[in-house]
């Protein structure tokens, strides 16, 4: 096991990348601490799988280095890196039995038969397939096959890291939860470094200690689930995480106040003069109905009851604003104003968060 360092990494699938936009993975420096469980979250096509394949050695990056501990493995192959990886779609060896499938990575490494048998039993118990060990893998259902793939990923104990590339896409929801729990248990038991790629925020937030959010080939934020919720470093994190995502409004910010389409909004801190596209962002959880002259005038479009709470969809000067109201809250007829909790408002300049003055300044972009 080892710490994994990505040093100045960048990758393009083109042989001669010209500009920034030719890179599937933009320049990236990152350290994956030994033994932590990470989720790599982002929309489809943002470079998550590229990054994963570079770490596992299936892909050689166009630029930069990959270090395991202090060793440069940029050009080392998968075998040398000793990494396990589980793919999005089930990969099983059809003509082998379930047991042989699980034993395959161990036998290829010349482990002794007794150890292989014990290990296969253990993993089979974990994925709930003890009774089908002697059955041919051909013809099993997609989620059974994916469980075998997961099992093959976990069967080796000495791996440097286990990488999961959206492994639960084809598994049904109830089983998803169970397997994720198993993965966490495995992580707690062996302390492998785990990197779990997903586009599902619930999956990411429940699985990982730390979540890495990627957007457009770039890591935009690394943090705990709370960090991502409270202080999204990038507008993408704001609206990608949360349901519905963060409300973003174009604004002019001066000192303690923001002006949104001529209306003043109080902020939780004081800001220096900003240039570029300035926006304020507030999560729907911190938007409430207002009375009298308070808040912003809006047109309420509809209210959706989603069980534990209600989502109010409104429109402010052409920009949608969502608010989350408690279950059973009544919206009075004629209600047409919404207000934001000032200390929950984040300010963004050109999509990156600006920290208020006089608080512990975390300069933008370096949070990555």
């Amino acid at each position, binding site marked *: 096991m080892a710490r994994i360092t990505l040093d100045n990494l960048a990758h393009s699938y083109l042989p001669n990348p010209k500009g920034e936009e030719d890179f599937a993975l933009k320049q990236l420096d990152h350290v994956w601490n030994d033994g932590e469980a990470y989720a790599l979250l982002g929309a489809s096509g943002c470079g998550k799988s590229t990054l994963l394949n570079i770490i*596992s050695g299936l892909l050689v990056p166009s630029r930069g280095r990959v270090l395991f501990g202090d060793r440069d493995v940029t050009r080392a*192959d*998968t075998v040398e890196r000793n990494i396990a990886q589980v793919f999005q779609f089930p*990969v099983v060896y059809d*003509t082998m039995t379930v047991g042989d499938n699980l034993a395959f*990575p161990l036998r290829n490494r010349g482990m002794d038969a007794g150890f292989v048998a014990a290990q296969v039993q253990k993993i089979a118990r974990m994925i709930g397939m003890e009774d089908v060990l002697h059955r041919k893998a051909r*013809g099993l259902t997609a989620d059974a096959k994916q469980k075998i793939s997961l099992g*093959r990923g976990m069967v080796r104990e000495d791996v440097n890291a286990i990488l999961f590339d959206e492994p639960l896409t084809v598994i049904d929801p109830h089983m998803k939860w169970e397997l994720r729990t198993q993965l966490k248990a495995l992580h707690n038991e062996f302390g492998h470094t785990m990197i779990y790629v997903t586009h599902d925020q619930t999956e990411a937030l429940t699985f990982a200690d730390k979540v890495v959010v990627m957007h457009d080939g770039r890591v935009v934020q690394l943090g705990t689930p709370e960090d991502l919720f409270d202080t999204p470093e990038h507008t993408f994190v704001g609206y990608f995480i949360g349901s519905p995502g963060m409300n973003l409004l174009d604004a002019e910010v001066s000192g303690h106040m923001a002006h949104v389409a001529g209306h003043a909004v109080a902020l939780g801190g004081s800001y220096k003069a900003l240039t570029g596209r300035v926006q304020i962002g507030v999560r729907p959880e911190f938007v409430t109905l207002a009375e009298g002259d308070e808040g912003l005038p809006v047109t309420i479009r509809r209210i959706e009851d989603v069980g534990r709470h209600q989502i109010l969809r409104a429109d402010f000067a052409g920009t949608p604003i969502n608010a989350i109201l408690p279950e059973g809250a009544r919206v009075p007829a004629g209600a047409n104003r919404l207000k934001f909790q000032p200390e929950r408002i984040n300010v963004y300049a050109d999509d990156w968060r600006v920290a208020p003055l006089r608080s512990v300044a975390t300069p933008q972009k370096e949070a990555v």
Partner: protein
Amino acid sequence: MDKVQNNKAWFLVLPVLVLVAFSAVIPLMTVVNYAVQDTFGNNVFFWHGLGWFEDVLTDSRVHGALGRQLMFSGIILAIQIPLGIAIALCMPKRGFWASVCLVLMALPLLIPWNVVGTIWQILGRTDIGLLGYVLSGLGIEWNYARNAVHAWVIVVVMDVWHWTSLVALLAYAGLQSIPQAYYQAAKIDQASRWKVFRYIELPKMQGVLLIAVLLRFMDSFMIYTEPFVVTGGGPGSATSFLSIDLVKMALGQFDLGPAAAFSLMYFLVILLVSWVFYTVMTNLDKQEGK
């Protein structure tokens, strides 16, 4: 509303019935008709029962042709299937050279049978053919018109040249359909090249390979034109395969009765083999559930 019963609709099926009758049923029945009758000419036929079938079944000439036929099909399958797979494995997966390879591979398939025969007939000659000239230049007494082994060699090599492409293209299509993730997973699992072939590529190609075997078996079992052009079935009857023998019997000797009985059994053998293949293939599909 009541369902309208109109039996006139049956007339709409008539064109198909007529077409199938004239293209398949009537010719086949004519053959059946010949197979159970005998004639001394003048279009006078009399009943002969299963006599011709008995004759054909006990005819050592037919036995010889059948033996040669099975050997020929066996040999070309044993060469073409592994060779085709090997070629498919060596072909580039994508890019300019993949297209070049595909076109080159398809070329032999586009050449008509009799032209293939003529090409090899000339190629194998020692006086004007490159192959024959080189072989005799190497000191080999090459003569496919007199030496039975040489005749077999040239017929087999010709068939391999003509049809291995088909197996290779089918296998190539099978290989192309394997998702990249399988190879990646195999790398992660540290599988050797042989294991990748044995546990990923071969099982994934199984379906197309069965089709390749079936096609090649049927085609080789019915082969006529190419050996006829190259060796004419000789020397002696060394390369007289079933269809060559059949044509000799039917048109050369005009033994309509035995030839008809012969061709019916020939037809049944092919039908039987195809059925066996079909059953094996569908059973393999079913096994997926076991």
